[in-house]
């Protein structure tokens, strides 16, 4: 009995390692296919549109509400120390360093990542990927590579839009509703938000999250069992795995960037 349990554990561990190996190989193959998008840049533009432009609405609205909430919560905390004029710095720093990249990654994993997984999974289930192979077209280069780079490039742009709209949300609440001084809001933000420390680090984070979310989504679709249940399960895994990895990697990156 115990031996059986041990064997099952070993089997599960080996399966997980094998899957991890396949995921890495797929990533390397997708990256090596970059020549395909240099040869046909319209493939990349189409994927930036799919992942980026089509996610704009959800990212913009979310950014607005997150910024407004930050404005409210930040004001009440800062007011206790008489520092409510620093609301702009607090809102901007929180968004640019942390909430912008992380929340955008979670939103993109839910909207575009799940869509990518379902699309690739269904292409596999309906033999479209096999048909491409039979037409002597490498599906990794033709289908996966443009989506990977499209996702990686779209993520920082979406995070920047999220942060910008969030700052506006914080401004509406802080200045418009709670009476924070307009000049203090912007001038303190301009003085304290550092390009290298805050914006560049936020950009690096969102690039890393772009790789994670798109890679996980593409691998889950490509490796899915080609049935309705298989694609459905892969789509769920895509969102859950991407979200957990993003949060874990965010902690590591934050510790490395701002940990002292």
């Amino acid at each position, binding site marked *: 009995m115990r031996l059986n349990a041990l064997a099952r554990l070993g089997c599960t561990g080996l399966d997980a390692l094998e899957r991890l190996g396949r995921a890495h190989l797929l990533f390397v193959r997708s990256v090596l296919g970059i020549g395909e998008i240099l040869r046909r840049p319209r493939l990349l533009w189409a994927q930036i549109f799919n992942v980026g432009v089509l996610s704009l609405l959800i990212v913009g609205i979310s950014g607005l509400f997150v910024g407004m909430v930050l404005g409210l919560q930040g004001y009440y905390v800062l007011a206790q120390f008489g520092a409510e004029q620093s609301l702009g710095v607090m809102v901007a720093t929180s968004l640019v360093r942390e909430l912008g990249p992380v929340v955008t990654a979670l939103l993109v994993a839910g909207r575009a990542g799940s869509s990518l997984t379902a699309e690739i999974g269904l292409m596999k289930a*309906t*033999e*479209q990927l*096999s*048909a491409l*192979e*039979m*037409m*002597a*077209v*490498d599906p990794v280069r033709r289908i996966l590579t443009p989506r990977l780079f499209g996702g990686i490039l779209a993520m920082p742009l979406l995070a920047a839009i999220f942060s910008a709209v969030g700052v506006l949300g914080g401004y509406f609440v802080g200045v418009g509703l709670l009476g924070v001084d307009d000049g203090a809001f912007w001038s303190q933000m301009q003085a304290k938000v550092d390009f290298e420390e805050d914006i560049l680090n936020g950009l690096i984070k969102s690039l890393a999250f772009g790789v994670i979310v798109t890679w996980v989504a593409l691998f889950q679709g490509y490796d899915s069992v080609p049935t309705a249940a298989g694609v459905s399960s892969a789509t769920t895994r895509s969102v859950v795995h991407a979200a957990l990895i993003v949060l874990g990697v965010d902690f590591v990156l934050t510790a490395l960037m701002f940990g002292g």
Partner: protein
Amino acid sequence: MQMAGNVHAWRLDAPLSPPQNGQLSPLPSNRTPERRNHDGTGRMDGEITPTLLQNTQSDVPVSGSHTSHAEIVTDAEVLVCVRGLTFRRGSHLIFDDLNLDIRSGSVTAILGQSGSGKTTLLKLITGQLRPDAGTITVAGEDVQQLDKAGLFRLRRRMGMLFQSGALLTDLTVFENVAYPLREHTDLSPSMLRKLVLLKLEAVGLRGARDLLPHELSGGMARRVALARAIALDPLLLLYDEPFTGQDPISMGMLMTLIRQLNDAAGLTSILVSHDVQETASIADLLYVISEGRIIAHGTPAEIAADPSEEVRQFMDGLPDGPMHFHYPAPALQDDLLRGTA
């Protein structure tokens, strides 16, 4: 003698007989198609090739065959050669030392019950799967020895019609057929358009060029897929269960297309199916596979006359016989009395 390459209207209502004068397809082709007789050897009735005079016996072993067809097969005529093929999925043996030949210019059908490995055999021939043992040679190239670039080069000379059609769902009918041409040729837009329209004309769907795959019926989708499969003028065309789920009219159209495309464009066709009558009516040669081996091969007439029990059960659709209806299981009584759900 009227040779192929002449441009005449190619019609679906033409008979399923060898192409006669004036009935050959206007298919645009980079190659000049040879005119072939119905047995697919390329010989015209009454002609005897020097090769045939020199070879009086086939040197091709066919595993487990109960039938020996009288055709003489030479290396030059064999486009696909499978030798000692063994393939397993996990512990399940799919093919056990399988040997078969596909003659150039013929329509060869591989028949077998569901789950007998017919589609797997196509995937092995096209290099989508690797065998555990044995060799598969296509047009003189050992498929297993080819690297990815070599395999892709070989696949440009193959076309495959998938069971589902496998059309790219976000592209129109026109773009689906144009896809392999755009990928592998540098044709001018005007030449590409003409070629695509001619391919679509050949399958009777020129008027459907702007439709999306979800707007097509099952039969139409397969005809579009067929147009796409012949876009690069392949040597070898593989059909995976082309008749499954088709109404009688669509089935008739597909049967006509398969036979006439093969003859008019000088292709070699491998057709995998379990639709016995339909397949036998258009094939030159049949292979019947069961439990990982070939149980019979020969012309449709030879297979129809084969007395072996296994062949008769499959060809006549008998529910009981050497091929079991039940999947292996313990005795029903033991199963029912043991445990709970």
